[in-house]
């Protein structure tokens, strides 16, 4: 045992008068400096990979809901029109525009969220303004119960109901097996609520975005920017 150290560090009375305020301030500053250096170093080291990871994740989600897309860019609603944004971040006021490999516009990927059974459910769905069809749906984030509510993204039967779903009027979730109308979705047994939440988010986002979307044909053209990514195959 290192007795010398024990005694020196545990005798409060001996230590109380000493270090002056300056030493205190300086040690804080030095620690801050070193820590800043370390942090910036790791940040720089990992920056590219992280950025790439994030972009890939987003891209994959967009590609999943918008098939046949190979380029995308973010759109923002400013001054009553949709303009292209190039920043890294993402917020509720953004949607994605998808283009095929010839830079021809295909459709939008729109995100929305609402309180679910446990916590906020965050989804992304693809939308073709040409025929008002939903092309697919992906859950970005949810804490729904494993085995029940998580079927909204694990149960492929449910997910595939959102492929080519016409969006002429509000869609509706009905009890499994009772689907009769085109705009109805068979809910998941035992997770009626989560199913309804998904439908609700889409309806809400649709209401919010459909009036904002530009006239068909006048979608912003693909600007090749940093955000642009090419689907690997």
């Amino acid at each position, binding site marked *: 045992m290192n007795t010398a150290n024990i005694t020196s560090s545990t005798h409060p009375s001996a230590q109380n008068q000493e270090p002056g305020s300056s030493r205190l301030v300086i040690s804080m500053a030095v620690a801050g400096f070193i820590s800043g250096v370390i942090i910036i170093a790791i940040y720089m080291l990992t920056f590219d990979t992280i950025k790439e990871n994030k972009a890939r994740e987003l891209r994959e989600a967009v590609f999943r809901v918008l098939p046949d897309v190979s380029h995308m860019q973010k759109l923002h609603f400013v001054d009553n029109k949709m303009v292209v944004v190039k920043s890294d971040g993402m917020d509720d006021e953004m949607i994605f525009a998808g283009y095929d490999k010839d830079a021809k516009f295909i459709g939008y990927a729109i995100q929305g969220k609402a309180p679910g059974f446990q916590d906020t459910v965050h989804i992304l769905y693809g939308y073709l303004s040409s025929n008002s069809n939903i092309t697919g749906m992906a859950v970005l984030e949810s804490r729904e119960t494993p085995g*029940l509510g998580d079927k909204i993204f694990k149960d492929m039967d449910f997910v595939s109901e959102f492929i080519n779903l016409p969006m002429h009027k509000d869609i509706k979730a009905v*009890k499994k097996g009772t689907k009769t109308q085109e705009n109805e979705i068979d809910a998941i047994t*035992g997770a*009626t609520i989560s199913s309804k939440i998904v439908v609700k988010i889409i309806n809400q986002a649709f209401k919010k975005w459909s009036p904002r979307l530009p006239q068909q044909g006048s979608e912003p053209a693909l600007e090749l920017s940093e955000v642009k990514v090419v689907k690997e195959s």
Partner: protein
Amino acid sequence: MKNDPLKKRDPNLLLQSAPLLRQELTTPAAMKEVWIALLPATAAALWFFGLSALLILITSISGALLTEWVFTDKQKRRFALSDTSAGLTGLLIGLTLPPGLPLWMAFLGGSVSIGLGKVIWGGLGTNIFNPALLGRAFLLGTFPIAMTTWGAAGGPGEFFQLHSSNLALPFMQAQVDSMSAATPLGLMKFEQQGTALWSLFMGNTAGSIGETSALFLLLGGVYLLLRRSIDWRIPTAIFLTAAVFSFIMFLTDGDKYPSPLFTLFSGGLLLGAFFMATDPVTSPLTPKGCWIFGIGVGFLVVLIRLFGGLPEGMLYAILLMNAATPLIDRYTQPRIFGRQA
């Protein structure tokens, strides 16, 4: 007089604390009253759900009894089951299970009730949470699908029609049961469909085996009230609060929200209010506390049913108020004679 105690030295005189008189009721007898009061509801369960109900009750009761037996320390084991409260817990959890539940889950439920709900706290009288409901909450959280798959009510003609799902192997999933149906509360919540009051009253609806028949539950409840085995304040407060709250909501939107009578007669409200919220061990001691407890249960059950994610809230309403019971008791101590409050 050969054996005159006066002539002997006196070590045979007993010193026992006064009072020497005791009223007749004992704790096992109090438990027996509840068994008796549950007879009509149990009979109704067998009537509507047949052999499945019988097997479920038997397994849940044996799960409870076995756990109690195994975990009681050796010295007290002789008395372990003598007060019949463990069996009662088993019966009560059995009555709250869906008829098609795999039997192994019913057994697990019974033993979790006693193990986690009672033994670990130190046995009879020491637990804070209602053991039967704790067991049910555990099952519901563990097997949410099996626990929300309801078999339709039948009649005595179908007594021997066993739900195939009952017989799932331990730890294995149940086969999908063909007889499944929705409970009145589920129908109300998810499809906005009402159920005839008469069916609710008689009990030929889907639901937990012991909760469907309002009539037979009322019979048992009134018996307990008349025998003064339960505190009348708790059910009264639950009924009044639930009725008033749901009536207010009913007035705001009669299509979306059910009528107060539907609220009272559907789901586990009656079973819970008469037999579970009144569990003396887990409800407040003081009269004022009983009112608060009942009001809390009534409020929470309607809150969860109408605004929560689950169609039924009695289970959680009671458990939540159980959690608050120590606080309620503490702040509703009776005013002592001759002292200001």
